[in-house]
């Protein structure tokens, strides 16, 4: 079976793309076995992206919550400001190795689009990014950033004009022009080999964090906590801890206005098993299997599905997925800014929000790691609007 996680995963894509994903899986396997590829990627991660990212003991946050010691995995300090660069450097190097001269990508919040445009500039690849028109409005700064990096940004007007529609359009573009083009998928989703490959590229987060926490706290954490849209920063953090049974793996989904309302993007909480975007997994959908129009304040979590490995970790009970509302995430966004002087991405703020509920019940000799998957500069204007302040530009 191709890329299965329990019953999840697979390759549910148009015939036109099958050869491309088969070639990709083979090229990825060959690259993994090639020390030259790994060395080149490691060098870029170190010298260009700024890895390893810090594991920062947040003393004031710890004191404020009054429970376990809180450590922040600072993916926000990576070049381009989020964890997305880890995956993108891996995939663009691979694309180059496969002889591809052009990359395409979907983006929600713009973080993945910016990272892809950055890596494309670095490696001399043509880059086109598909972004929902709704998100283009929410993340105007990132659109300009991508253009500055030499990428062409295509607004997607179909459907709800958000991340799901951007993925649809990028897949359509890939079927139009597949020979010279690699689709840099931004999360642990899509057809095999993407969920496995993206998880492997992101697992550097968890590998570093595991070593760092053992050094700094002297023992494994009680829990690792990350936000989940498709789920790439969470999967990257979780994966090296999967075989540590004492470490709770907690994914924070975007509940939007609340899981009891239709204005939500919490897939595990409100979705059902289905097949979409190349994979079998859980999806928000209606009673006849139409994909639901989802909502979250966070453009990066505003997605109706979840990566197949997360679906599997949910099925087995190894990981827990909790819904976090817009309100809680915005509160956490402001709380972390004031407490630690760190403005997190609104996506990452979902993880901080759940930690505020979870951490106080733990004892001070325990620790938790929160993945700060990205920085919040891009969100400042939207949060101001949410609080009723209109900002210029």
């Amino acid at each position, binding site marked *: 079976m*191709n890329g299965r996680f329990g019953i999840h995963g*697979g*390759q*549910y*894509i*148009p*015939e*036109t*793309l*099958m*050869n*491309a994903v088969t070639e990709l899986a083979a090229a990825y396997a060959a690259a993994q076995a090639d020390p030259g590829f790994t060395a080149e990627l490691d060098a870029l991660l170190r010298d260009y992206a700024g890895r390893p990212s810090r594991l920062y003991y947040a003393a004031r946050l710890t004191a404020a919550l009054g429970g376990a010691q809180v450590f922040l995995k600072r993916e926000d300090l990576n070049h381009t400001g989020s964890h997305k660069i880890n995956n993108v450097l891996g995939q663009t190097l691979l694309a180059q190795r496969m002889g591809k001269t052009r990359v395409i990508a979907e983006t929600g919040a713009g973080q993945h689009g910016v990272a892809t445009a950055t890596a494309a500039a670095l490696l001399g690849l043509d880059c086109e990014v598909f972004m929902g028109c709704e998100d283009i409005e929410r993340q105007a700064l990132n659109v300009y950033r991508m253009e500055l990096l030499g990428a062409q940004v295509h607004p997607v007007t*179909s*459907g709800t004009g958000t991340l*799901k*529609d951007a993925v*649809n359009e990028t*897949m*359509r573009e890939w*079927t*139009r*022009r*597949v020979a010279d083009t690699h689709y840099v998928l931004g999360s642990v989703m899509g057809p095999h080999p993407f969920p496995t490959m993206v998880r492997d590229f992101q697992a550097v987060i968890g590998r570093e964090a595991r070593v760092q926490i053992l050094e700094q706290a002297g023992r494994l954490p009680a829990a690792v906590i990350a936000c989940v849209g498709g789920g790439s920063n969470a999967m990257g953090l979780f994966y090296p801890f999967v075989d540590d049974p004492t470490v709770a793996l907690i994914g924070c989904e975007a509940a939007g206005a609340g899981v009891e309302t239709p204005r939500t993007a919490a897939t595990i909480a409100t979705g*059902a*098993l*289905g*097949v*979409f*975007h*190349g994979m079998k997994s859980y*999806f928000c*959908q209606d009673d*006849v*299997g*139409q*994909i639901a129009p989802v909502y979250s304040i966070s453009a990066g979590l505003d997605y109706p599905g979840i990566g197949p490995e997360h679906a599997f970790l949910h099925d087995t009970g190894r990981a827990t997925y909790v819904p976090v509302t817009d309100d809680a995430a915005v509160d956490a966004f402001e709380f972390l800014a004031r407490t630690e002087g760190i403005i997190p991405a609104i996506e990452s703020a979902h993880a901080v929000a759940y930690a505020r509920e979870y951490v106080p019940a733990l004892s001070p000799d325990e620790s938790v790691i929160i993945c700060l998957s990205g920085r919040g500069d891009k969100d400042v204007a939207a949060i101001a609007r949410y609080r009723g302040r209109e900002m210029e530009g």
Partner: protein
Amino acid sequence: MGTERLRQAFTNKAFIAFITGGDPSLEATRRYIGVLQRAGAALIEIGIPFSDPIAEGEVIQTASARALAAGTTPTRLLELVETVRREDGITVPLAFMTYLNPVFHAGYDAFLGAAARAGVDALIIPDLPYEEHGELRGAATRAGVALISMVAPTSLARTRQIARDAQGFIYLVSSLGVTGVRSEITTDIAPIVAAIRAETEVPVAVGFGISTPAQARAMAAQADGVIVGSAIVRLIAEHGEAADDAIAAFVGELAGALR
């Protein structure tokens, strides 16, 4: 029933028509199925609209959105097929074309059983490639509905394997990209058809991008039939509830070009 009806459709070069079910209304779809049969369609594909049709171009995307907005569901289209079989004298084979999620959601055996009882002969799922056919094939076989395999210009070495296991007919995708009218089809389909013919007698129908009598004739000369979708759906977008004459004239001309 299904297999025999499909075989008969390919006695001569087959003109296959696609329309999106429920666009602009179920009543219109019912009439248009009759128009298509009378105008010479040897097989009719009815699209069950899906919210996110990733293999479709803009014409069928917007048709799907119109059909969904009009309240079209898989159940209503099953009822529609039953009605046209019972009351409208529709004898040509009928295929459902949809994406996997609505079928998965209904349950494979339940959906295919209901489809067969209604009078559906074949099922085409663009996001279910050959490698994933296994999970649906058992239910299709039990129901007696042909699960159609697609072959694309990029299928290359996989073409023969797909052909060996094909049933009903093979849907040969004429060119890269999504559905939609193309001014020119540059793929040389002859070697692909030859590779298929080396493995199977199952007929080959060519689709994607065909909209003119000349294109239809050229493709049919190398295969067993042609599939025309977006060009018909575009007429429906233009004429709405009153597309009968436009469809009859257009399909009559294209079907005539194959004789």
